[in-house]
């Protein structure tokens, strides 16, 4: 998640100071990505350095609001118009874990899959519970974020189901590095467990 673009998008609504930005960010994302105030100010000073925001005079309470510059407005327009590339996301630790589980002696891959599936479905249940309690029209932003997390978790479960189905049919290469399939009388499932 780009805090930088998040703050720019919020400033599109009008000038805000640090604490207001933090509160607005958390409100928009349902506290899914909590920010500390230090991150907000560090990001604001970088945005100012890059000419995307400019500070306004302090208000009576001693808080300094920031506003978008034309450059900042352009940046946010481009951000909204550009899809997020999957390659920009961190490597998928779960996929790597399963790949390693398959080739590590003594690991029950099906158990690894099930442990993950239970955890992911549990997360789905929690997200769904939150969703079922957010029925007010004003909760729409929050519901969109919850739905994004729900569909991502669901996709993970479907992928795990797919992995499990593949594992049932999986025949590991014979020992010694050969790629010859296991003999016909091998119990697939037992092999997949290894």
């Amino acid at each position, binding site marked *: 998640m780009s805090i930088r673009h998040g703050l720019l998008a919020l400033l599109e609504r009008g000038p805000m100071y640090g604490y207001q930005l933090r509160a607005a960010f958390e409100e928009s994302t349902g506290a*899914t990505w909590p920010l500390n105030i230090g991150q907000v100010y560090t990001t604001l000073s970088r945005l100012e350095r890059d000419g995307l925001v400019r500070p306004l005079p302090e208000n009576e309470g001693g808080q300094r609001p920031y506003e978008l510059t034309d450059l900042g407005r352009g940046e946010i327009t481009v951000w909204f118009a550009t899809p997020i590339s999957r390659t920009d996301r961190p490597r998928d630790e779960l996929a790597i874990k399963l790949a390693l589980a398959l080739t590590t002696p003594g690991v029950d891959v099906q158990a690894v899959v099930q442990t993950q599936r239970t955890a992911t*479905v*549990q997360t789905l*249940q929690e997200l769904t519970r939150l969703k*079922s309690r957010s029925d007010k029209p004003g909760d729409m932003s929050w519901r969109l974020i919850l739905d994004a997390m729900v569909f991502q978790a669901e996709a993970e479960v479907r992928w795990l189901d797919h992995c*499990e189905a593949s594992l049932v049919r999986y025949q590991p290469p014979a020992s010694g590095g050969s790629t010859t399939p296991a003999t016909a009388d091998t119990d697939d499932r037992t092999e997949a467990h290894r």
Partner: protein
Amino acid sequence: MILELRGVHRTHGRGETAVHALRGIDLAVAAGELVAVMGPSGSGKSTLLNLAGGLDSPSQGEVLVEGEVLGTLNRKQLARIRRRHVGYVFQDLNLLASLTAVENVALPLELDGMGVRKARKLAAAALDEVGLADLTPRFPDEMSGGQQQRVAIARALVGERRLVLADEPTGALDSQTGESVLRLLRSRVDAGAAGALVTHEARHAAWADRVVFLRDGVVVDTTSPVGEPEQLLGAQA
């Protein structure tokens, strides 16, 4: 406890060709609780639901509905339990095309000997609860898929019935309509029914309080009960 399965086994066939559909299942569903059963094809999900509804008998073990052991009942008594206490929602609705919504919902009550007027009144109230008060005189083919599924849920929970068994109830519905059906099922369970939901979709199972994972007729794992929203927000943060 509304539904209990104790050490339930179900074997189809004998000897070498025997298929062990369920092997030692223990499951309890209380009032106000929705339990989802997930598992790959052939894992025993539908067999479990059929046993819970008295549509099939276990080879070993006991199934109890509202405290009554189904195996000790004669055919007539079993039919009475099924009509009075158990409601079903299937993927393929099973609404009768020649009956209106209110007649479909009233049918199980009328079959149980209730007078037509009283049965229709209860059916209309059940349709009102699922948001279909205005559609009581419509025939199934005059309603959308989501509306028909709402009728099926009203029918499953009309009268005294407090156990609803749902087998892939969102089958052919689009994502939004499917979700509204689950919201409805959830709210009926929150109002005091007990529910068992069989589904292969995690997003739908997630509406349950507990998700039970079946594989090869055995429960391989279960999720823990879901906490309250405040705790969850903390967990998300």
